[in-house]
């Protein structure tokens, strides 16, 4: 089996461009390795958000290739994280694939509507997510332009944002801005993150954390009105 440490120069470049690491993971085995993850990411893989404090991301239902890449990047230091590095270092390439499969299969990420709807120009978070901020040469594309309709993620590269914890989203955007996270393929995220204001980071984090619930609430209200 080809592991990332064995591939040559060109293949390494390709691996950097395509995060999908072709290593078959075994979810059952992954569960054994994942016992150390539970303290923060919780037994149900949903993570935890302590307002004003730590925020551990939801992993359940994330794409396995994406998760595997992150664990590799914690090891390599492309994603600098004092908490995660020692745990990632304990894992072999096979164990990384297994843990990734374990969390990917644990639950489904919430599926949100994909149909077009017009963004409300009076809601700043929604506007950033769906339309971006292109004024004054900020060149901030809409988050959904890469992360998909309602930020539910696209393929193996662009992780879901909707339903992720606000503190975690904020920490990641700030990690890119501060340079401690630099594992985005082709540096697609870093430039955008650096052009965001503090306020925009907050708006985006809150918008996506609440999105599955706010969509459900809006849907319920609509049905109620239809029933009248």
């Amino acid at each position: 089996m080809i592991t990332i440490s064995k591939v040559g120069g060109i293949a390494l470049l390709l691996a950097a461009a395509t995060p999908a690491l072709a290593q078959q993971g075994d979810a059952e085995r992954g569960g054994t390795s994942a016992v150390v993850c539970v303290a923060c990411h919780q037994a149900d893989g949903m993570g935890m958000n302590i307002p004003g404090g730590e925020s551990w991301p939801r992993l359940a239902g994330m794409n396995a290739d994406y998760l595997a890449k992150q664990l590799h990047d914690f090891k390599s230091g492309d994603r600098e994280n004092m908490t995660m590095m020692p745990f990632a270092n304990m894992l072999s390439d096979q164990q990384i694939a297994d843990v990734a499969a374990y969390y990917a299969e644990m639950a489904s990420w919430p599926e949100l509507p994909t149909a077009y709807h017009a963004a409300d120009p009076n809601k700043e978070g929604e506007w950033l997510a769906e339309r971006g901020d292109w004024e004054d040469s900020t060149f901030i594309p809409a988050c959904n332009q890469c992360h998909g309709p309602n930020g539910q993620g696209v393929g193996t590269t662009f992780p879901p944002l909707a339903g992720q914890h606000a503190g975690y989203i904020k920490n990641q955007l700030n990690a890119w801005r501060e340079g401690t996270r630099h594992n985005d393929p082709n540096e697609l995220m870093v430039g955008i993150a650096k052009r965001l204001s503090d306020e925009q980071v907050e708006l985006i984090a809150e918008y996506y954390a609440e999105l599955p619930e706010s969509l459900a609430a809006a849907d319920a209200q609509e049905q109620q009105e239809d029933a009248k």
Partner: protein
Amino acid sequence: MKLRNPHLLTAAALMSALTISPALVAQDAASSDGEERDYQIQLPAPPEGEVTFQPPHERDLPDNQYGDMVRKGRDLFINTQSLRGKHVFNDQNCVNCHLDAGRLAHSAPMWAAFGVYPAYRGKNDKVNTLTDRMQGCFTYSMNGVPPEAGSEEIVALETYLHWLSTGAPINESLPGRSYPTLSEAEQEPDITRGAEVYAAQCAICHEDDGSGQQVGERWVFPPLWGDGAFNWGAGMHRVNTAANFIKANMPLGKPYSLTDQQAWDVAAFVNSHERPQDPRRRTMESLDETVDIYHNHMGFYGDEINGERLGEGDNYGENPTPSE
């Protein structure tokens, strides 16, 4: 590989009033057979200079019939796929080539286009109204069947463009119009080098085979070739147009990050793939004739690439009807 240079045509009165980029001035000027038409002459390059125009914000849209029509046009512009099967027969939306819903400078913004029409276009050798121009987008970029003049679709789109252009001068080429014109490539655009750029910079979103990516029915990253892409008559199939667009707008969020040469090369790579037939081919005797009359520009239509001649055959993608 053969890349044709755009011909020079002096007929357009508009040109004399505006700066013409050297890149548009070709060495092989007039055709010798007395045929004076040049179907490929483009509007002159946008002027240099700082972009000062700012379209209005949607939060200031009025709550009246005009505002509602603007919103309708905006929705069609962003989600042109709502016209799929009626006017659109590929996987594209207007916003793919006109970023930020047609607002972004150097991304062919609508506020800079609105005021330059009516204008003579060599593409169809007549003075085109804004409606004609938008119908052209449907025919080629959307591989579609254009909505009729005066139809709600056209009225909505025109109203959206009109609103975006609030305060913009009429009949004046504004800085930020179209895509910035790259200077001529130092090395001839090369498909092989372009393939490397594509694999490294573009495939992550648009996929190795150019097919793009979708979530549910929504296209997140549009196809760049194949049946879902713009057809062989669309402006974006020209290597120079695509290079200009790419340089200023791609990869998304990283404008001007590719070198000029990379932009030229990757544009050549993308546009050296098969895509829906040029609809004008329907009225032509042969591929050669279509090439001779309509394709005197930087493109690969009619060229042999990897043993296949591009534009051979009658694959019009999903488009079922002959265009006029």
